């Protein structure tokens, strides 16, 4: 679809977009995404039309339109530039890149140019930490930006080039795979035995046909495979629960909403091993008796949409998806692609299911768990991209082969997304059980002062514990390893991650919606040297309240940047607090508190300006 410069959306066209999805309310996110792409905004009138077509109330439609960051109720520029505002990007030169964009386009962050040609905004981590700073320009991704590059980009855009032309002058002639790797370098630094080495096409699926569903599940369970998204639930058990729940229909969902800042391993698998992923999903479908599948692709990875769509089409054409897969009677399974629209919370499986159902991406109350009542109340298996890929390989090579790798309780290999202050940022496929020190050696990050394992909801460790191991029992991670050198300010990093959680909280429960704001403010006080000794207790106390009283994993882990740095970098906090003097708070600064009033009243203080009247 060609985006227009901002216009009043043609409601006939909006209705046609609804028709393309049979006006199915469960496809609301797809409908609104298409409207957004076409008209660059979702107007009040559009909401009315969509509500009528889908037989929903206007407020229900608006609930979805206002939830997702990539949907806008104000006109956006024909070219929307979203700069990745991750801490890694900030350290890699984002401020200079932002300034260059602002100067070239004549608009500030958060603004749209008067002619409706350009919008400029920040967005949280887009999964390009290994090549920061990065940006999305409409559906195109550009990485390793510099101010010089930005000036070139803006000149080209103003000269009438399409965003695609920035990637290659013969973009239209490239295959989807070529387009993807021109935009984004996958930086595979170490290929392991399971995923990134040679993977014979559909070997696992062929073997799965000779096995009973029971045998497949037994094999996955025996392999010791655990979910690779971060939580680490035993995959075989998850499949067994779904298989044992009586139902007419069952669903397999692939969680490709990799939003944890610092994680980009799924991006690499989706680009380099898309067939392996769908093969894994198809095997899961046979194991649990599912006929429907969904790949939930995060909105930031829209540049992979064509590639994945091609893979699905190709597999359908070759009889690997659809009815009678590989000629086997009764083995029917098909997969649709569901695109997200910029919401970190949708990586949480309940929120992800809500999003697939066309609702705002809010988590669901558990229990019931998705394996018994998930997507449209059907038994649903939600697994990470990497988990499905592993499953396909396990069925091909056998459970024992996989079980032998790694450590007790953490079997097989894991993809680690390494970024930050190191020589070789990128993807490392390594067996579980490696120490952080060893990984730092491989990545050329021996100077690290701090390593964040598992993203902001994981653990930040200091140099004295680099001997710790990457396993589920010691340092569990969905794959993110962010390295910080001694030049970095730990509290700046913590404050950034708290602001990330403030931004991404879905707002459903108060402890998370409000508590994270208070935590962020408290950390800001430490940074400014305005914290009391008692504020350390306040941080711990508030953190435990948020963890105990939040409904989903976001609130249960959002205080982790603070808690893990309090534990592993206690001196940083204690060095920043200011004790009271004579029980009068040294942290209250009267001079800055009256600065505004002094300026407004155009006079000085007769109490606190000592030289007043002299």
């Amino acid at each position: 679809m060609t985006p227009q410069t901002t216009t009043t959306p043609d409601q006939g066209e909006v209705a046609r977009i609804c028709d393309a999805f049979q006006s199915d309310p469960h496809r609301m996110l797809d409908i609104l995404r298409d409207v957004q792409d076409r008209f660059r905004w979702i107007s009040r009138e559009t909401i009315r039309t969509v509500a009528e077509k889908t037989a929903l109330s206007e407020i229900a439609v608006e609930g979805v339109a206002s939830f997702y960051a990539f949907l806008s109720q104000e006109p956006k520029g024909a070219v929307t530039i979203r700069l990745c505002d991750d801490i890694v990007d900030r350290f890699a030169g984002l401020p200079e890149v932002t300034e260059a964009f602002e100067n070239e386009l004549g608009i500030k962050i958060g603004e749209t140019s008067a002619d409706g040609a350009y919008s400029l905004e920040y967005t949280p981590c887009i999964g390009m930490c290994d090549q920061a700073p990065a940006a999305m320009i409409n559906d195109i991704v550009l990485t390793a930006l510099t101010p010089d590059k930005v000036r070139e980009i803006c000149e080209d855009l103003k000269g009438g080039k399409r965003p695609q032309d920035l990637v290659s002058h013969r973009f239209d002639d490239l295959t989807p795979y070529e387009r993807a790797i021109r935009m984004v370098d996958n930086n595979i630094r170490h290929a392991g035995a399971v995923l990134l080495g040679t993977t014979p096409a559909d070997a696992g699926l062929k073997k799965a046909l000779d096995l009973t569903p029971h045998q497949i599940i037994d094999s996955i369970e025996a392999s010791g495979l655990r979910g690779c998204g971060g939580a680490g639930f035993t995959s075989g058990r998850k499949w067994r629960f779904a298989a044992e729940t009586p139902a007419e229909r069952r669903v397999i969902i692939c969680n490709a909403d990799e939003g944890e800042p610092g994680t980009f391993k799924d991006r690499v698998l989706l680009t380099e091993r898309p067939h392996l992923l769908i093969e894994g999903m198809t095997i899961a479908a046979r194991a649990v008796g599912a006929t429907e599948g969904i790949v939930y692709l995060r909105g930031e990875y829209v540049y992979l949409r064509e590639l994945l769509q091609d893979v699905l089409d190709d597999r359908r054409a070759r009889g690997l998806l659809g009815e009678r897969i590989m000629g086997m009677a009764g083995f029917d399974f098909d997969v649709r692609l569901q695109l997200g629209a910029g919401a970190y919370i949708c990586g949480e499986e309940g929120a992800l299911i809500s999003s697939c159902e066309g609702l705002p991406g809010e988590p669901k109350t558990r229990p019931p768990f998705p394996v018994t009542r998930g997507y449209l109340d059907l038994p649903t298996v939600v697994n990470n991209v990497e988990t499905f890929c592993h499953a396909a390989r396990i069925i091909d090579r056998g459970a024992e082969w996989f079980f032998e790798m790694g450590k007790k309780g953490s079997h097989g290999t894991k993809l680690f997304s390494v970024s930050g202050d190191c020589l070789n940022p990128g993807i490392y496929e390594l067996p579980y059980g490696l120490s952080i020190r060893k990984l730092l050696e491989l990545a050329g990050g021996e100077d690290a002062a701090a390593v964040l394992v598992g993203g902001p909801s994981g653990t930040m460790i200091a140099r004295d514990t680099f001997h710790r191991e990457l396993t589920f029992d010691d340092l569990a991670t969905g794959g993110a390893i962010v390295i910080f050198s001694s030049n970095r300010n730990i509290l700046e990093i913590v404050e950034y991650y708290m602001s990330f959680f403030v931004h991404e909280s879905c707002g459903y429960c108060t402890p998370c919606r409000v508590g994270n704001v208070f935590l962020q403010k408290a950390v800001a006080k430490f940074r400014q040297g305005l914290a009391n000794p008692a504020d350390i207790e306040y941080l711990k106390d508030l953190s435990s309240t948020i963890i105990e009283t939040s409904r989903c994993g976001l609130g249960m882990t959002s205080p982790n940047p603070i808690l893990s740095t309090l534990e592993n970098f206690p001196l940083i906090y204690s060095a920043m607090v200011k004790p009271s003097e004579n029980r009068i708070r040294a942290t209250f600064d009267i001079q800055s508190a009256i600065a505004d009033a002094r300026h407004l009243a155009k006079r000085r203080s007769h109490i606190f300006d000592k030289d007043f009247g002299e």
Partner: protein
Amino acid sequence: MTELPKARIATASLAGCFGCHMAMLDIDERLIELMTLVEFDRSPLTDIKTFTRRCDIGIIEGGCCNEENVHVLQDFRKNCDVLIGIGQCAIMGGLPAMRNAIMHSDEPLRECLEEAFINGRYIRNTTHNIPNDPALPLLLDEVYACAEVVEMDYNIPGCAPTGDVIFETLSKLLAGKFRGFERETIRFD
């Protein structure tokens, strides 16, 4: 046996509405009982404006919205052994702290004053000016709870606390028996 010296109490109302001071009077006839144990120093109740000597207890109503509030509060901290916040304004900033909600402005204080004295729909201000007499203390950028400015020893919650709660708390403190509040006495639903 010599009579114990009376405890000396000072009170002040900062950015409050004087409601908590009114509530102190709700102690009613028990005031006579209380007065056998205490005497008042600096307080609006005595109209003494400065400390005559060091006090045992300071009671603060209201938070800090201007420089004079800060000055008074710091003065209380220097001159009182035990400092007690009374009412929500002292404890959390209370109603005056509503102006802290003006956040998305480059000049929140100006916006607040213009709304209060010039732009507000029901304003009858014939001068169309924001008051700026040199005698007026300068406002703070936002309203602060007392504990943000000095260390506080105790808080008596409520808006305003009842005379009963005030009397109970003071009596127990004076007897050295205050161990916090029973939940029933400070719930308001």
